[in-house]
């Protein structure tokens, strides 16, 4: 009895040690002395990247863009944390980075209000902060980098007005999560984009909550109710793909043009869908990963003190002409 139970007690101990041992495989730090201070090209810099939720493909691509860009800067080491959509976890992630004495923080916040305090704590401790995609409140950050959803929606609208339906026609819209800022801005921008062409009318609006399956079921219903749709404008590529599936099963896919937004360079993303002919066009929603590392290099390696507070990134139109080329370039 004693030996058997003794073994188990030992087992717990060893278990704990093994777990911790698995933790010690990683690099423990770079040894740079000054927190967030620029020591020029000779320094070594630890950058913490706090991601809101890697399970979203867009954010996965953002992380890998940062990783690829950082590989080009020999002075940089980037460590990643994933909050799995939990604000409390993301606060802890940033705190742990601060404990590790990172030289610069990149954060794509899950939500603004809950992350504002910890971001401003980092900033006030002298750590430069680059905020990606979603903002925090106030001004306690070094630079915000992100796309402009209104401009992207507008570009989509102009593409429909000038290229797809110059003589007018009917549009069905599949919207993202109601109340979310990107959904609102992508809707408003689109309306401004088509305003120059009086012949274009939005005859149906469905809510697909950003999801492929809901895009499909919503468009099933829209197809039932409307005979004469020319273009489907979806607020993101998965919903556009869902709409395509719905049209295909109704044998109407060939009569329609589908456009989406995001253009992720992944096998399930919008660029591939354009290459395969399912979508007519998609618009790049930039991750800002490359720009974040460029900005970090400006701050840490080149000791620039005047990086812009806000960097708004341009979208890019992806059609069958450039899809294959862009995909190849982005996936390396």
């Amino acid at each position, binding site marked *: 009895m004693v030996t058997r139970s003794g073994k188990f007690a030992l087992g717990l101990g060893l278990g*704990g040690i093994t777990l911790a041992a698995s933790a010690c495989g990683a690099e*423990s730090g770079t040894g740079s002395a000054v927190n967030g201070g620029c020591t020029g090209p000779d320094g070594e810099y630890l950058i913490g990247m706090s991601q809101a939720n890697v399970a979203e493909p867009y954010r996965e691509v953002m992380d890998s863009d940062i990783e690829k860009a950082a590989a080009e800067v020999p002075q940089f080491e980037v460590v*990643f944390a994933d909050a799995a959509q939990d604000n*409390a976890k993301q606060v802890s992630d940033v705190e742990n980075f601060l*404990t590790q004495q990172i030289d610069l923080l990149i954060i794509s916040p899950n939500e603004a209000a809950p992350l504002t305090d910890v971001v401003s704590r980092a900033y006030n401790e002298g750590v430069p902060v680059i905020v990606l995609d979603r903002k925090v409140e106030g001004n306690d950050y070094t630079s915000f980098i992100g796309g402009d959803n209104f401009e992207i929606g507008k570009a989509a609208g102009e593409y429909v007005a000038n290229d797809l339906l110059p003589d007018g026609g009917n549009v069905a819209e599949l919207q993202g999560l109601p109340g979310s800022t990107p959904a609102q801005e992508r809707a408003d921008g689109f309306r401004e984009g088509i305003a120059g062409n009086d012949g274009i009318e939005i005859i149906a609006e469905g809510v697909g909550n950003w999801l492929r399956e809901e895009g499909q079921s919503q468009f099933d219903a829209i197809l039932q109710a409307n005979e004469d749709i020319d273009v489907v404008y979806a607020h993101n590529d998965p919903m556009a793909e869902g709409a395509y599936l719905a049209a295909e099963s109704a044998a109407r896919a060939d009569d329609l043009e589908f456009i989406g937004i995001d253009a992720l360079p992944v096998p399930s993303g919008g660029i591939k869908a354009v290459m395969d002919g399912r979508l007519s066009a998609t618009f790049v929603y930039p991750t800002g990963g490359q720009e974040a590392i460029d900005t970090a290099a400006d701050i840490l390696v080149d000791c620039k003190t005047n990086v812009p507070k806000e960097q708004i990134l341009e979208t890019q139109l992806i059609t069958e002409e450039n899809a294959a080329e862009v995909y190849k370039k982005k996936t390396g």
Partner: protein
Amino acid sequence: MNEKADVKEQRPTAAMVSSGNAGALSTPWYRGGGLPQGRRAWLDVLFRLQSFVGLLVVFVAAIAFSPRRNGVVLFLDPNNIANVVRAVSVIGIIAIGMTFVILIGGIDLSVGAVMGLAATGSAALLINSDYGIFATVGVILAIGLVFGAVQGWISTSLGIQAFIVTLAGLQIARGLARMWSGGQGIPIAYGDGKNLAPEGFALLNSRVINGLVPVPALIFIAVAAIGIFVLHKTKFARHVYAIGGNERAARLSGVPVARVKVAVYAIAGLLSALAGIVFAGQLNQGSPNAGIGYELNAIAAVVIGGTSLMGGSGTVVGTIAGALLLGILNNVLALNNIDANIQLLTTGIVIILAVALQSIRRRV
């Protein structure tokens, strides 16, 4: 037919033997047959302290494997320790309530959702309805208490398993939270005037004593102290252990089973609501999606702390140790930049280890 009836008759007897035995290890009250002697007693002590042995091992390992900067162990940095305790405070508060529930052999799946409801409600009352701090806290705690009590009452009076009732409760609390806020998170901004929360509420995301000790950690410690006191010193606790050990025997010996059960679920609801208030204050936001999956983290802390899911055996102290163990483990893995997926994996392994120890404990 006869056979079935026989089986039904047998069941309580079997439960009486096994869980009565388990209960004897942690509670001195209705233990029959005196203290275990010699080797057994030593083993009992080891098992009773399993969560502390585990906590100690993880703590020592955390120091050993913590990254160092200029010879300083980053894990032991006072700010880092404060971060760890703050990070486990919310789960810890919920887990203390969960301990009572699991001690009676029950389960409460609604705690994370009730926490989300409370966080949303706190923000809604402070910001949209301009309630003061005390009115807000009072109303929210009352909601949690009543929500828990109603679940306990439905479960006992209709004889429905707590698992089902609280699963339904989870959905209802989430639905109510989404309705209350229109599906959106409500940011909490501070100041005097309309649609601003009183500055006092910001205390929850501040640190006192040289800016080192996070207020949520103090609340966690206070709740823990009360929990330990209640579970060691009161008649209520003896009833809780008795019901968990053997509900029928407890009923026959005059324990007001239904009342105690309702009270236990009310405690779990109350503490979940308190956790929600802390959560809202600490994150400056009340979101209806707050606390998704927290019920599982709370159950994990309770189980790692050595409380038996069969009821009747366990302590609040163990639960606190379990919560801290998970917090330290996550912290040291994060400090070493270990992949988040491996963090999930290690949590799973620790739970298995803890439950394996319990199972051994029942057999010796």
